[in-house]
């Protein structure tokens, strides 16, 4: 690494950037001398400054729920954010089954203790409902890529905005129907494609139809399935060393509910409910059945608190960071290198095919970077780019 001591005035700095090793997070920083401070300076006040700035700007979060109809997606969203985001749809009451997959997106601003959050929830009614579900993931992938495209276009403007509005999907919650057996081929296909573009959190929906033992067995089988097919769901292990080693790992390990870590309990078995009932004098959210009331926030009944904590209380910022630093960057590389491949989605410019030149990195200083989980499915092939 090059010493930052410059003796010749005026010569531009050329930091010698090596390809960063997986373990160090600041590999390209110059030689630094640790210094002892003899008294209080007040550097940690910068944390407060950060907080004030963040609270003033507000936060954004975009979540997408994917799953067949009837799995309780809308209810789950309402339960997660404790508000009526969606009206739960009752199928069969004159609402025709959508012939095509239509994405619906709704944005709300919610505030809690002075923290403003602009939440966008995208629903996918009609997913997996047709008889022939071939390529039903294409509209979803198209939508996700379209958000990346918007952000990229804003980013490469000459005069760009101070704060680019972030509509990229930060998290995709995939609802697995509680068959109790294995992941279906549709699930596997979809997860394989999506986990390369976006953070995917699979959950077992309507888990109140499974007993605790069945749940555990199902969960294990799903985990095996995921491993066999090489599907990396959130939190991805391969990013631990790259980006957030300590904080993420420690958060996963310091699990307050039990000694197991998050990764071992994914996919969570969840139940959604937006009605309140009285249990033992307390008012809880739950589903009332003839044989009892299933409390949503009770860890013994279902794992909804885990999902909520993962998504909101502890890993929200991390979800956003991984989307920005990894998935978006992968998209950008793909887009700038091989933009002659027609991207999916409406409103995109139909780009002319680029000259058949070797996609060498542009600019005089292109360095190889550590291999990330990159590439995603094109229209006709399953190859990684």
């Amino acid at each position, binding site marked *: 690494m090059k010493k930052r001591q410059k003796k010749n*005035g005026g010569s531009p*700095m050329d930091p010698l950037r090596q390809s960063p090793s997986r373990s160090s997070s600041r590999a390209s920083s110059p030689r630094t001398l640790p210094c002892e401070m003899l008294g209080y300076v007040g550097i940690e*006040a910068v944390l407060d400054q950060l907080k004030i700035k963040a609270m003033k700007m507000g936060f954004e979060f975009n979540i997408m729920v994917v799953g067949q109809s009837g799995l309780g997606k809308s209810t789950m969203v309402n339960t997660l954010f404790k*508000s009526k985001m969606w009206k739960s749809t009752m199928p069969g009451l004159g609402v025709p089954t959508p012939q095509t997959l239509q994405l619906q*997106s709704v944005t709300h601003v919610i505030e809690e203790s002075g923290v403003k959050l602009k939440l966008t929830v995208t629903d996918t009614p009609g997913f997996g409902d047709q008889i022939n579900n071939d390529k039903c993931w294409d509209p979803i992938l198209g939508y996700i890529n379209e958000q990346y495209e918007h952000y990229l276009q804003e980013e490469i403007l000459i*005069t760009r905005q101070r704060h680019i509005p972030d509509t990229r999907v930060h998290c995709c919650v995939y609802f697995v129907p509680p068959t109790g057996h294995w992941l279906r081929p549709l699930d596997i296909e979809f997860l394989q494609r999506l986990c390369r573009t976006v953070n995917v959190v699979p959950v077992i929906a309507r888990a109140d139809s499974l007993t605790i033992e069945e749940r555990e067995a199902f969960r294990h089988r799903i985990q095996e399935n995921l491993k066999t097919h090489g599907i990396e769901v959130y939190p991805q292990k391969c990013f631990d060393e790259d980006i957030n080693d300590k904080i993420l790992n420690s958060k996963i390990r310091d699990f307050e509910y039990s000694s197991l870590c998050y990764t071992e309990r994914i996919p969570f078995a969840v139940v959604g409910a937006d009605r309140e009932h009285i249990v033992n004098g307390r008012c809880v959210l739950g589903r009332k059945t003839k044989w009892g009331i299933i409390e949503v926030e009770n860890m013994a009944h279902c794992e909804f608190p885990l999902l909520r904590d993962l998504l909101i209380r502890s890993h929200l*910022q991390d979800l956003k960071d991984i989307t920005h630093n990894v998935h978006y960057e992968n998209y950008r590389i793909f887009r700038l290198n091989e933009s002659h491949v027609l991207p999916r989605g409406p409103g995109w410019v139909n780009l002319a095919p680029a000259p058949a030149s070797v996609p060498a990195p542009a600019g005089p200083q292109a360095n190889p970077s550590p291999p990330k989980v990159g590439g995603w499915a094109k229209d006709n092939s399953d190859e990684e780019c």
Partner: protein
Amino acid sequence: MAATDIARQAGEGCRTVPLAGHVGFDSLPDQLVNQSISQGFCFNILCVGETGLGKSTLMDTLFNTKFEGEPATHTQPGVQLQSNTYDLQESNVGLKLTIVSTVGFGDQINKEDSYRPIVEFIDAQFEAYLQEELKIRRLLHNYHDSRIHACLYFIAPTGHSLKSLDLVTMKKLDSKVNVIPIIAKSDAISKSELTKFKIKITSELVSNGVQIYQFPMDDEAVAEVNGTMNAHLPFAVIGSTEELKIGNKMVKVRQYPWGTVQVENEAHCDFVKLREMLIRVNMEDLREQTHSRHYELYRRCKLEEMGFKDTDPDSKPFSLQETYEAKRNEFLGELQKKEEEMRQMFVQRVKEKEAELKEAEKELHEKFDRLKKLHQDEKKKLEDKKKSLDDEVNAFKQRKTAAELLQSQGSQAGGSQTLKRDKEKKNNPWLCTE
């Protein structure tokens, strides 16, 4: 494949929805802060000022530590920038502090170009960041940000007005970096002179259109503090690392025969204000201004220079892609040209070498021929000589036989005369040839 139909419920666009319970995202600022802590902060200060104004001492005092370095001499031929990076740690916050200092500023006789190395340095940092941002494979979240966040401009405590060098330099810097002018070594000015000096400086800056950094007033939490501080600009500071026990505390002082100046006493100097503003209140804002204002300005100018245009947003990816392509092709073309040149040069060299070798060969051949000829000549001579020698030997033999014949005839005739004559003949056989 059916087209995607994204129905955004218009009108409900950003409706505020009431929450029925505690969701828990009020921990978001904490999550953000934890993220930042794990990444660490970096802050870069540039100190511009003449030699001997106390730049290093002030840095030591500000950060309560002793940075390494020795005072510079006054004999530097030009302005140079010296940059050092330090790792500071306070409770759980790690700060990578870079201090860049001008060496030899204001020492030359001709100071016309003194500002240039500074401007070039600042531009170089922006350029490095821009290059990183424009790369296809980039690592922005790991990138060590070397852009200058704050520039402390040290004004000499003359008490009169700004020097023209100061004005020119600050004018050049104000659009590139947050300039904070400070009056150095202000224990040399008395209080009344100080107020007049400050007023004079501010009016000169305003009349020359120099935009110095104003502390932000849009956030209610700090607007008041910043507002009052803005009125005290430029700060009159004193730096010192010597300590003395006053009362029951150790304070940083400068000791004079006529009294002791306490650095952290607000009545004595504005050091505490500077520290408050620079570090405790506005560090984040300085960084943001650098990124969103100065860097964006630089980026815009640079990209327009490179030929990008924003006119048609639809074609933005085009022109970026095309320019990338063009650059790529240009680069490849240059490579090929260079390769050609090298190849030609190589061929030429080979030819020359061949010619040389041929000549050498020819010479060798000639030499060989010559030598051979010489050899033959010698040989011929020798043979001639041998021949002549043989002739003489033959002649001698003939005479010998003739002489013996005569002798044998003479011995029959009479003895001594012939003996004498034989003796003579024997003694001088060579005289026979008459």
